[in-house]
């Protein structure tokens, strides 16, 4: 098909104009994504309703609530204040635990980076505790803390804390020593070196660490609510958060609600990551081009 090849003045083949190629490719990517969503929904719908059209349920898929039922439950729940309260309760816990992890983790990471003696004392303990999964802290947290709310906040804090500290420490360690030397050479006092050189240089690491950490907090909050909220029986359906919402939906046998809860958590996690990404992008606008 030589007729399709564009030929330049010197007879050499010319590539098609780039922007056109890009829009065409991205249009195809969108179409493919939509097709694969449709296929997943179709397989899910057919599998979930297999009891009706096949006579007996298919393995695994046959036990799922159908997408239509999930959609119906979702519509109903959107008008239910209890659902919103659950989401709000989980959100509040994530913000509290994550906020505490940032407030404690960032200064600790910076202090360890700036003070080698403190680092030699604190870091071994830190490394000893770090491999313990956040959820393994749940029973201990319930014993440690006076209220169940604080126990859940604490477990979430643990989930985000290590990531924050390690990212800040790594970021501070990799600050170019020449930036510090130049600042000192221009008469910067210790405080200036910290506030004008080290701190701004660490901000990208704080942003990246926060994005990873907030993802972990949403994983942890759900499990912590299932265990402590569901287990102790102290939480009400609305105050227990999305984790407890899923758990009580399971116990109550309303399976479509389980899926609604799962999707809600996925969306919440995505939205909080996006919010942090946006904030981080505004804080580090200079980082667009490498210097």
């Amino acid at each position, binding site marked *: 098909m030589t007729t399709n090849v564009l030929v330049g003045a010197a007879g050499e083949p010319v590539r098609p104009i780039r922007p056109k190629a890009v829009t065409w490719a991205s249009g195809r990517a969108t179409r493919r994504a939509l097709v694969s969503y449709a296929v997943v929904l179709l397989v899910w719908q057919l599998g979930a309703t297999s009891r009706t059209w096949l006579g007996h349920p298919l393995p695994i898929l046959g036990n799922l609530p159908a997408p239509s039922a999930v959609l119906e439950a979702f519509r109903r729940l959107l008008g239910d204040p209890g659902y919103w309260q659950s989401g709000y309760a989980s959100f509040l816990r994530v913000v509290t635990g994550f906020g505490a992890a940032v407030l404690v983790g960032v200064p600790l990471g910076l202090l360890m980076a700036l003070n080698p003696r403190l680092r030699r004392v604190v870091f071994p303990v830190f490394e000893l505790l770090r491999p313990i999964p956040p959820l393994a802290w749940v029973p201990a947290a319930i014993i440690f803390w006076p209220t169940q709310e604080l126990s859940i906040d604490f477990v979430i804090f643990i989930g985000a804390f290590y990531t924050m500290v390690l990212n800040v420490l790594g970021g501070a360690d990799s600050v*170019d020593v*020449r*930036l510090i*030397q*130049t*600042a*000192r*050479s*221009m*008469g*910067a*006092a210790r405080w*200036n070196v910290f506030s*004008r*050189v080290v701190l*701004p*240089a660490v*901000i990208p690491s704080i942003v990246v660490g926060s994005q990873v950490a907030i993802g972990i907090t949403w994983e942890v909050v759900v499990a912590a609510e299932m265990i402590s909220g569901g287990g102790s029986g102290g939480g009400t359906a609305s105050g227990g958060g999305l984790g407890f919402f899923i758990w009580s939906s399971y116990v109550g046998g309303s399976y479509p609600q389980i899926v609604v809860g799962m999707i809600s958590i996925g969306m919440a996690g995505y939205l909080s990551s996006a919010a942090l990404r946006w904030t981080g992008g505004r804080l*580090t606008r*200079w*980082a*667009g*081009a*490498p*210097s």
Partner: protein
Amino acid sequence: MALARGGCGDAVVTADIAGWTDAPRPAPVRGALRIENAVKHYGVGASRVLALDGCSFDVRAGEICVVVGPSGCGKTTLLHAAAGFHGLDGGTIHLDGRLLCGDGSDATAPPGSDRVVVFQNGALLPWKTNLENVMLGPRFQGRAPIAQVAAKARRLMRDAGLEGYENAYPGETSSGVKRRVEIVRALMNDPAVLLLDEPFRALDSLTKSMMHAALLAIHAQNRSTIFFITHDIEEAVFLGSRVVVMTSRPGRTKEVIDVDIPYPRTYDVLTSKRFREHVQAATSIVHEEALRAYERGEREGRAS
């Protein structure tokens, strides 16, 4: 090494300044560095290395003194000691008669804006615009109101041909512009001596020759002493009023070459007979040392 201080090509420099009507009045020439018997070790125990062993020379006030020598000869060690980043194990460094580095680390003067360093790969703060970077020194020192600092920064940038780059971030500017921004940033501190550690090493040869012209123009205007380190012999002879050749490790002064080519120097100098003679003389001395360093490296390589 008994070299007289001061009085080196000043007349030529002043003649060039006359063209700059809005330039600040040249500061009294200062920035004489006297390095005497500098000794410095690195490492401990078996890996202890003698980097400098009794290195002595003077950098005269107002001159461009270029130090050349093979890799690892201790040039940068010397410059860092003068900058105050570390002390010496022996010997002294004086700046205009003031002791910077003495025997014993307690006599080491901390880094200060009277001797600002410019590094080879650049150290502009990437989160500050070029103008903000240039303003850093006086802002750190808190010695002048911000409007006054900004005005001076804009003027110096304009004089260095950097108009239009004020609000760009370093990441958005070319390497040649970045180098000039850094030199202007150093000059903002009115340093007695500029310590340039292979500042043009990473540049391509075209940009490099532009930088040479820019540096000579800045020096003609500003007259601050320049202590310049390089591997590049042509660069050394083209820029320097004197070229100090150092021995391979441990670093000592091997020879001091007086470059008797008057300033202002233009590209014609590069093809002149006198320039080639100086380059040839310096090259043969440096080569001898580079060869020694190479052979020793070979021996050490086999031994380990």
